[in-house]
């Protein structure tokens, strides 16, 4: 199998995974809107949770994946790792945008303000900006090897920075709900809602996988095409 065929195969896998997860997403939406009770305190606005929380969780995970892949890249110097790290960062940034849009939409009715400098909001904002910086940097470096090295350095530094930002802004804590899911005691949420939320998270993780696979394949194909152009000239 040629590299081109393999890349095309990867792209197709990505498309299939994406298609499946989009279907599942529709299912989750139906369940969220029609078969999950309306929150007593917040009213229908609370429905945003089923997008907002999964999208937020997935994007943070995407950045973590990018950081870890960067670390491995520096050790092994395999171009594929760089490609995967970049794909993860890009999808993470896209999901972050979704988080940063759904959050304020939710915040306005519930908190009465679009934005507040609470610890979790702020730290996510900075992490988001850090990875926007990562993508800007990638754009500004022409040589692929140099780009990979520089990106890896920023990815690793970002990974290390996250806990520090978290600690820092925690002292400004205010409104945002504390984790209801990932905490030492049992989840504090009605069972029906919890199931909807968990399945939504599952679906978004699948969507993430689909996007990253496709993005990775596109990068591989681009590289191939440029190499072919090189050989022709």
């Amino acid at each position, binding site marked *: 199998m040629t590299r081109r065929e393999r890349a095309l195969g990867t792209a197709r896998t990505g498309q299939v995974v994406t298609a499946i997860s989009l279907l599942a997403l529709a299912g989750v939406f139906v369940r969220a809107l029609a078969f999950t009770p309306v929150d007593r305190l917040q009213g229908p606005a609370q429905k945003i949770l089923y997008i907002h929380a999964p999208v937020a969780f997935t994007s943070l995970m995407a950045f973590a994946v990018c950081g870890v892949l960067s670390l491995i890249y520096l050790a092994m110097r395999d171009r594929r790792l760089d490609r995967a790290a970049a794909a993860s960062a890009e999808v993470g940034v896209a999901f972050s945008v979704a988080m940063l849009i759904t959050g304020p939409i939710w915040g306005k009715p519930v908190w009465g303000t679009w934005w507040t400098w609470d610890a979790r909001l702020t730290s996510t904002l900075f992490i988001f900006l850090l990875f926007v910086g990562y993508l800007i940097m990638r754009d500004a470096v022409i040589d692929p090897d140099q780009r990979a090295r520089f990106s890896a350095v920023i990815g690793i530094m*970002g990974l290390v920075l996250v806990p520090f930002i978290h600690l820092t802004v925690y002292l400004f804590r205010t409104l945002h709900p504390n984790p209801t899911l990932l905490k030492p005691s049992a989840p504090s949420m009605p069972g029906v809602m919890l199931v909807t939320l968990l399945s939504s998270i599952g679906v978004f993780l699948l969507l993430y996988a689909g996007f990253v696979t496709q993005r990775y394949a596109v990068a591989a194909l681009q590289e191939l095409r440029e190499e072919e152009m090189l050989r022709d000239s």
Partner: protein
Amino acid sequence: MPVADYARVVWAIIAKDAMVEWRTKTAFLSAMVFAILVLSILFFARDPTAVSSLDVAPGALWVTFTFAAMVGLNRAFLLERENGAMDGMLLTPIPRTAIFVGKMGGNLLFVALVEAISIPLFILFYNVSLAGRLPQLILVTAMATVAFVAVGTLLSAMVVRTRFAELMLPVLLLPFLIPPVVSAVQVTARILAGRPLSEMMPWLKLLAGFDIVFCVLTVLLFEATLDE
């Protein structure tokens, strides 16, 4: 390489940077002007009937330091790029980390000088009294400065090689400034208010942790920015 030789090389780089800066004085004067400008903008920006100058003082001080450092960092690596001078260093048998430590030392010197001049100006402008608490202020300043100079030196080493990228240094560096600058502001506010040391401890611990982690990390990562 024996420690004495290592130190000698680091010192040679610092001395060279200091000499270049001394000859031109541009970066230093720009940083000072910027410091004065920021101190006065923030001084005049407050509504004097609502906010006392003492309350905005810690923020003013740290914003000043942060941006002055940015000016210095940017310049330090531009200098090496101008005639490809970095190549001259890379050809020699000195360890890569010595180059990093040397450049970082030069930057520290630069920022420390700007700070040393800003602090009296700040005391004058904002009419704060520091009786006996100056050592504390110097300590926290030193801790925070080391943190952001370490990260800034590494990032400017990369940014400088992406050409036309002066904006990118702030874009990449600012997220890394949040923990040290916020901690420093918090500690400074408590120092100025005469609070006990115990109230500052969590922040100081955070700062110390940041310093240790990032000093080690940046030295380790520097080499990865070089080998082309």
